[in-house]
């Protein structure tokens, strides 16, 4: 047995989740590519891209659940890390356009030519290499989270105060990225992507490929989160969430624990953002909008915080509802629905969907344990 025994990693709900995800990752491309367009089973390419987007949202939700559900850190600015990862990917995609842009400049992206820039800013260097961009996708959100967390957690900023400064962080970034002289395309952002690693981003094959890769990334993130929350480290996180002072008194350096998990979560959000951008074809400063981050927290609340699978489910349910409500005559009512959903979940289902199911299950097991006669030995873990 290694340090991460599989039995610990894969409980029943984790297996169900991974199987469903695998079926999903297999079925959608099959129904899109192999089933003829006329058939009722055919999944349109529009839906493939939409589902790909949902998967990326699910990954963002997972990263929020890791810190909020297990360490009690309510970040209302996680959209910022998502967007930063997205921009890093966007910069790579921009550099891939080359002479196919409107101004056909082999080095400068169109918006720079439009602004009369003569050369590429230093921070755009290297983004023509995918490996470098991939590194930045992890590094930029991770570094920002590390520096931010370093100051916040060391000064013992917690609760609502931390939430507020995370909102301020994403808002400040949004204002910055809106500026043309920032060098990220201002309010238009980065778009008009042509290809990724040599594959046309618009092609059906690429879209299906990206969906499958997103599913794999989600599965790996999920397994990593499971490994963390089922370890002793995860138990310390829960202890911090429920009784921070007591944990400190036991001799744990609470700020080191928070900093580690916050940074890791930001990297995960960055990867989600990076996978999101080629599938939606654009990244612009509105991704930094504070409302986006709050919406992502609502996904987790709806699915059930501190459950991991709930975060994924919540992201799917709420975004499906959003897609449903924002198309057609219901469009004007979406924000009311979202607000109503949040109030309903807070009042009626405070544990979220998965959380409530787990609670029933645990109560059932607890009853069984209580029923065991006192002398009977209880199985050790």
């Amino acid at each position, binding site marked *: 047995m290694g*340090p991460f025994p599989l039995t610990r990693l894969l409980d029943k709900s984790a297996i169900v989740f991974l199987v469903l995800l695998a079926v999903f990752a297999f079925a959608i491309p099959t129904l899109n590519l192999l089933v003829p367009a006329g058939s009722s089973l055919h999944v349109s390419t529009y839906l493939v891209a939409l589902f790909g987007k949902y998967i990326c949202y699910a990954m963002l939700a997972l990263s929020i659940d890791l810190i909020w559900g297990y360490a009690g850190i309510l970040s209302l600015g996680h959209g910022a890390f998502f967007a930063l990862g997205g921009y890093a990917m966007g910069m790579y995609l921009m550099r891939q356009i080359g002479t196919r842009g409107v101004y056909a400049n082999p080095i400068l992206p169109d918006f720079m030519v439009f602004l009369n820039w003569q050369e590429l800013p230093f921070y755009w260097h290297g983004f023509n290499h995918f490996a470098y961009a991939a590194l930045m996708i992890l590094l930029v959100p991770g570094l920002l989270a590390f520096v931010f967390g370093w100051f916040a957690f060391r000064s013992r900023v917690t609760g609502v105060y931390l939430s507020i400064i995370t909102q301020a962080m994403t808002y400040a970034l949004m204002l910055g990225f809106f500026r043309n002289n920032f060098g990220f395309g201002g309010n238009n952002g980065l778009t008009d992507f042509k290809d990724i690693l040599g594959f046309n981003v618009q092609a059906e094959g690429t879209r299906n490929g990206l969906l499958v890769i997103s599913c794999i990334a989600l599965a790996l993130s999920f397994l990593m989160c499971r490994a*963390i929350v089922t*370890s*002793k*480290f995860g*138990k*310390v996180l*829960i*202890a911090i969430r*429920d*009784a921070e002072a*007591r944990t400190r*008194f*036991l*001799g*744990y*350096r609470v700020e*080191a*624990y928070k900093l*580690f998990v916050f940074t890791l979560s930001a990297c995960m959000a960055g990867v989600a953002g990076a996978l999101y951008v080629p599938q939606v074809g654009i990244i612009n400063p509105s991704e930094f909008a504070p409302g986006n981050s709050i919406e992502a927290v609502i996904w987790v609340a709806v699915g059930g915080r501190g459950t991991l699978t709930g975060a994924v489910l919540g992201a799917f349910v709420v975004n499906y509802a959003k897609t449903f409500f924002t198309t057609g005559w219901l469009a004007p009512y979406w924000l009311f629905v979202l607000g109503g959903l949040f109030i309903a979940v807070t009042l009626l289902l405070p544990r979220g969907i998965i959380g409530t199911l787990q609670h029933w299950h645990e109560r059932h097991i*607890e009853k069984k*344990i*209580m029923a065991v006669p*006192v*002398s*009977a030995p*209880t*199985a*050790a*873990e």
Partner: protein
Amino acid sequence: MELKTTSALLYLDGITVSFDGFKALDELSFVIEPREMRAIIGPNGAGKTTMMDVITGKTRPDSGDVFFEQGSYDLSKLDETEIAELGIGRKFQKPTVFDIHSVEDNLMLALKNDRGVRSTLMWKNSPAQQNRIDDILDAIRLKNVRSRVAGSLSHGQKQWLEIGMLLAQEPKLLLVDEPVAGMTDSETLQTAELLKEINRDKTVIVVEHDMAFVRELGVKVTCLHEGSVLAEGSIDQVSTNDRVVEVYLGR
């Protein structure tokens, strides 16, 4: 300040602590020998909690000496974490266990181990650690509820679990604040037994109001009053002392 040579595990000399002119401790002095168990009694406001705060580094004394381990450490110069690492463990009045974790996990978190991020990420339960947890579970009489979540325990059981978490940290000196508050009579007796067992290889200071419990412990008693020692001796000696009777009954 020079360190003293003394045989005592804990050495308090002339400790004074005042809050806004009110002297919570007034020239308090006493020594605790290794392997001793001492009961500290005294009416409300006698300075019992402040004394604990001084020993654990929560409060700095205005004057006086606090030495630990035969005078090798000056506790008035160390902070809470450093003192905890030296091996002084404290159980607060109100039990604070991690409600959502199992009894066993509560102990596992308290076990004396590297507290760093990397070591908890890679942590694996070893037979030695499991034995240690089993021993503690035996001692605190919670073996049959080991997989239950701590939140579902009775008040008395939570107190025991908290004592167990203290033991898991392998302290040299245990400070136990009102361990039997809110316990039933039989739980009180069992707690006295538990503390006596712990005392076989550890030094214990118990602060308690419950006289029957103190009598059950059968150890040397120090009675505090207005921040200094009023009487010291066996429970019979102390409880028949006229001054003690006076402050307790307010005559």
